[in-house]
């Protein structure tokens, strides 16, 4: 582009016009800056408030000030000495990781077949998968609450992982289909010509190439599973399987006075920070995954 512009005399003014646009970009109008500041405040202030709460103790906590006067980490040390909280962290990690792994393995097969192979009724299958994502979780929680008690998997990991697949699997399939479609067909075809079977082509060529897609689908599925609340609070009863969101709601459950808001805030910060870091590290992928399908077509 640059080289051709330099050699062709006619293109020079155009190239100059392009560079001339740059200073205009710098002259972002003042009201845009106000908008930018407003958005940043809107998005970050509530979370800042939570951090502020988590650093307060004693009389500081009742002061409602926006800055902690005597910042302290006592809430954090208290939360890490709480065995229920530690157990819920472990439960959440196990349930979310297994859900994600299952959804990725099973979902990638389905997504590949939908993206690449000859199959009748593809549109119907994809439509069905998509419609599952709109199912209200309550319609699954109600029967499973009774069923899991009857067959003895109420308050267990497996009792959570099974219903979690209802949202994890469609999410993974939907994201992976759009990623698999973007992988050039030539590479698979070369592998097929070299004598690989379709499944080998999928496993050895497509999966490695779709690694970014798998990462995106994995992160989004993990976040969805980590965040899930309705099933977690309905299908668990003890620290045997209760996940972090359910545990935190039990902290706040007692609406009477003397609710340990400092510790609740600290616990909330602790479980949010890894997620926020994950999101910041992989933000491009996450945005790509979230907007997949929304802008195409």
């Amino acid at each position: 582009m640059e080289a051709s512009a330099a050699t062709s005399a006619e293109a020079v003014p155009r190239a100059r016009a392009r560079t001339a646009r740059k200073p205009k970009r710098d002259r972002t109008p003042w009201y845009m800056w106000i908008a930018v500041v407003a958005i940043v405040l809107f998005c970050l202030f509530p979370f800042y408030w939570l951090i502020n709460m988590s650093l307060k103790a004693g009389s500081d906590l009742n002061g409602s000030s926006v800055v902690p006067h005597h910042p302290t980490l006592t809430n954090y040390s208290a939360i890490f000495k709480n065995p229920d909280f530690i157990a819920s962290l472990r439960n959440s990690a196990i349930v979310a990781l297994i859900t994600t792994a299952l959804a990725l393995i099973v979902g990638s097969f389905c997504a590949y077949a939908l993206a690449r192979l000859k199959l009748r009724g593809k549109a119907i299958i994809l439509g069905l998968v998509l419609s599952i994502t709109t199912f209200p979780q309550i319609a699954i929680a109600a029967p499973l609450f009774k069923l899991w008690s009857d067959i003895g998997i109420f308050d267990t990991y497996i009792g959570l992982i099974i219903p979690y697949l209802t949202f994890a699997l469609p999410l993974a399939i939907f994201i992976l289909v759009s990623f698999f479609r973007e992988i050039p067909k030539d590479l698979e075809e070369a592998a097929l010509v070299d004598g690989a079977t379709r499944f080998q082509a999928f496993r050895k060529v497509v999966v490695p190439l779709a690694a970014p897609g798998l990462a995106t689908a994995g992160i989004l599925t993990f976040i969805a599973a980590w965040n899930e609340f309705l099933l977690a609070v309905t299908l668990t009863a003890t620290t045997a399987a209760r996940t972090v969101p359910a545990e935190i709601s039990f902290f706040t459950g007692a609406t009477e006075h003397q609710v340990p808001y400092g510790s609740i805030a600290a616990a909330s910060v602790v479980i949010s920070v890894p997620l926020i870091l994950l999101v910041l590290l992989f933000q491009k992928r996450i945005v790509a995954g979230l907007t997949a399908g929304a802008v195409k077509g």
Partner: protein
Amino acid sequence: MATVANQAGAPAPTRRRSRSLSEKRLAVLMVSPSMILIALVAAWPIIYAIWLSLHQYSVRVAGLSRWVGADNYTSAVSSPDWRSALYHTIIFTVISVTLETMIGLGMALAMHRAFRGQGLLRTVVLVPWAVLTVVTAVMWRTMFVSPYGFINTILGTHTVWLGQEPYALIIIILADVWKTSPFIALLLLAGLQVIPDDIYEAAKVDGATAWQRFVRITLPLLKPAILVALIFRTLDALRIFDLPYVLTQGTVGTSTLSTIAQQTFATNRLYGQGAAMAILAFIIVMLVSFGYIRFVGGNIRGMTAE
């Protein structure tokens, strides 16, 4: 490449046919685990819920039940509690989705125009999305509850915000708007970025004002993205559970279709009635999504079926 193709030229026809046969079989094999799992974990529980909803279960004697037909449905639909839950859900959905779409659109336009701060904004906007819904509830609770929160201090009031009829629902709406407007902004920003600049340049040359360009170019071209955001947000809002459950336990005018059903079967152990309420929530969500597909089907077909 060419030599490979030549070598493979002779046996190609037979191999191709067998490959395409096995390809179909492979496709079925690859799709079926997901389909079986989805049927098992989604369809079957719903069928079981319908079965439960047609029975009445004894609260005292475990396992004792009798067939009651549609009684659980008629009693739910005629009960004032369920009706007010439906009413709160509709109010919540209409107001929060409207606000989120408008704020999201505003944020997307600002992010699109702000050349300098765009990277920062894209990052910042993901923070509310990444914060757990339960944590969102904790956040908003601590801002409003005295003596911890600053809202009463700033306003000089002594209001018990989460204990009063309109305020509790308003705070739930605010919390939801905070959490999801940024997500809509990202969706719409992606939509804005595929609109070519030339169209705006041409409109400018023709003397169109900024408002005309927004109404005549931006909005029509952004319509598909706005519709997708609207549909997903509406269906999500109709099943709202976390925020009212954590902030108010569905009291003081914040019960929703999901909270009332959950409390009926899990807290009160009325399996039949709870299942009926869950199925009603399911039917309402399905009706709305079919309505959307019917109403705007042509606009989004390109996106889902592509």
